[in-house]
C-alpha cells in the first residue's frame, strides 16, 4: 500500500476534523437556536456539499483560490504560494466538503437539549456562550462524537474535490482514494484491492464505533445523550 498516501490521508482527515469541530460548533449552535429568517438559507448552503457534485465544488474552489480572483491573488501573496495544489488547499476543500457531516449531527443534538435547562441556566446568570460551553456541549457529547467520526470518515473517502483542487501530487496531495484510482488505471489490481480494503475497513470501523455507543437516553432522566 502507498504509505505516503495513507499518512497524508490520515493527516488530512485529522486536520479537517479538528477545524470542522471549531467551525461547526458555533454554526450548529446558531442554527439550533436562531429565529432568524436567514436560517433556511444558511441550512441549505451548509447542506449543499451533500448533493452537489464534488467536481463542481472543486471547480469553484479552484477558481476562487487561484489567480483569477482578487481573493486568490491576496491569498497567494500572503502564503507565498497558490493554495490550489497544496495540502492547505486540500484542507480548505475538505472542510467545506465535509461541513454538513459535522454541522447536521451537532445542530440536531443541540436542538434536542431540553429548553428548560437553558432557561434555568439563563436565570442563573449564564450568557449565551457560557450556556453553550457549560450546558449544551456537555449534554450533546454524543453528537460531538458522531460529528467527529462522520467528518473523519467522509474526509478519508473524498475523491472528486481532492482531485480537482489538489491535483495528484505524490506526497503533497495524493490521498488514498486517488492512489486507488491511479492503481486501477495502471492495472495494479492487487495493490488496488489492498487500498480499497483498507478504506472499506476504516469506514466500517468508524460506523461500528458510532452504532456501538450506548443508545441515547433522555437527558432529563439524568444520563447523557
Amino acid at each position: 500500500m502507498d504509505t505516503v498516501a495513507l499518512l497524508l490521508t490520515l493527516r488530512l482527515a485529522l486536520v479537517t476534523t479538528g477545524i470542522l469541530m471549531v467551525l461547526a460548533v458555533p454554526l450548529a449552535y446558531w442554527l439550533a437556536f436562531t429565529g432568524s429568517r436567514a436560517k433556511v438559507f444558511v441550512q441549505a448552503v451548509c447542506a449543499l456539499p451533500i448533493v452537489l457534485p464534488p467536481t463542481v465544488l472543486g471547480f469553484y474552489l479552484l477558481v476562487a483560490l487561484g489567480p483569477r480572483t482578487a481573493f486568490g491573488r491576496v491569498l497567494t501573496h500572503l502564503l507565498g504560494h497558490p493554495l490550489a495544489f497544496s495540502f492547505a488547499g486540500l484542507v480548505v476543500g475538505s472542510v467545506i466538503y465535509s461541513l454538513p457531516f459535522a454541522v447536521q449531527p451537532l445542530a440536531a443534538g443541540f436542538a434536542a437539549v431540553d429548553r428548560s435547562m437553558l432557561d434555568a441556566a439563563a436565570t442563573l446568570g449564564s450568557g449565551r456562550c457560557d450556556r453553550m460551553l457549560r450546558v449544551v456541549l456537555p449534554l450533546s457529547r454524543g453528537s460531538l462524537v458522531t460529528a467527529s467520526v462522520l467528518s473523519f470518515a467522509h474526509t478519508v473517502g473524498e475523491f472528486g474535490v481532492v482531485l480537482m483542487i489538489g491535483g495528484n501530487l505524490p506526497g503533497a496531495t495524493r490521498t488514498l482514494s486517488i492512489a486507488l484510482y491511479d492503481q486501477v488505471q495502471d492495472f495494479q489490481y492487487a495493490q488496488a484491492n489492498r487500498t480499497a480494503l483498507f478504506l472499506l475497513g476504516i469506514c466500517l470501523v468508524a460506523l461500528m464505533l458510532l452504532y456501538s455507543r450506548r443508545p441515547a437516553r433522555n437527558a432529563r432522566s439524568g444520563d447523557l445523550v
Partner: protein
Amino acid sequence: MSDTPSPNPPNRPWLTVHIEHRFHHGGAGFHLHLAFAARAQRTVVFGPSGSGKSSLLRAIAGLLKPELATIQLHGVIVCNTMHGSQPRIFLPAEKRRVGLVMQDPAVFPHLTAAGNVAFALRGTEPSAQKKKVARLLEVVEAETLAERWPRQLSGGQLQRVAIARTLAANPSILLLDEPFAALDAQSRQRISQNLHQWARQRGVPVLTVTHNLEEAFVAGDEVLTLEEGRIMAQGAPEHVLSQERERLLQVLGAVPPPGPVAIPRREK
C-alpha cells in the same frame, strides 16, 4: 453580582408589570392582559391552571418577550416594548438577577447536586464556594445529597436542589412557580419557611404563583387572583378572600357554604 439586593424603600413597588401578550396555540388564542404593582415582601398570584401564571413569571424573568410590556424590578426598567416607547428595552434573563424556580426543576444532569448549586458561583474562591453550597443545601434540607447525581434523586429532592441552585445566584427577587409541588406536606412547610426566612433576611421579595388556595393565603402578605390572563383582585389575603369568596369557590368547583369562610391560619 453584588451581595446585597438593591434597597427597596417601603411602599415603593419592587415589581411593576404591565403586559399584553397573545399566545397562539393552533386555532385558539390566549390573551395575557394584566397590570399590577407588588409591594408586599411575599406576594402570591393565585389562579387555576391555564390562567397565565407561569407565562407571567417567564415574562418577568426575561424568558418570554411579551408583545407589549413594561416591567420594572426595584424601579429599574428591564422590559419596555410598548408602542412608541423609546428606548425599547429587553434585558435578557441572564442580566436580570431574577431567581426563578419552576415546577420542572430542570436540574442539570451532567452535574452533581453540589455542582448544580455551584453553577452560578463560578469565579468564587473554591473553599468559599464549597461552604456556600453546603449552607444552601442545608436551607433546603438536602445536605446529604451533595455528591449525588440527578438520576439518583427523587422528584422532591430535585426540586430542593433547584431551589438551592437559584438561591446561590444571589437573586434580587425570587419567583416561585409551585416549587414545592413534589414535596410531602411536612417538608413543604419546613422548606417553605426556610426559603422565606432566607429571603426575608436578605430583603429579597418573593412572588409565588400557585393554584393551591391554602398556600396562597398562608404564604402571601398580599394576594392577586388571576383568571384567563387577567388580574381579578388584589389585596390582603383576608380582604381578597372575602371579596372574591363566591367567585373563588366557583373557580374551585365548590358550592359556597353558608356563613363566613374559614380563613387558613397565616404563617408568621
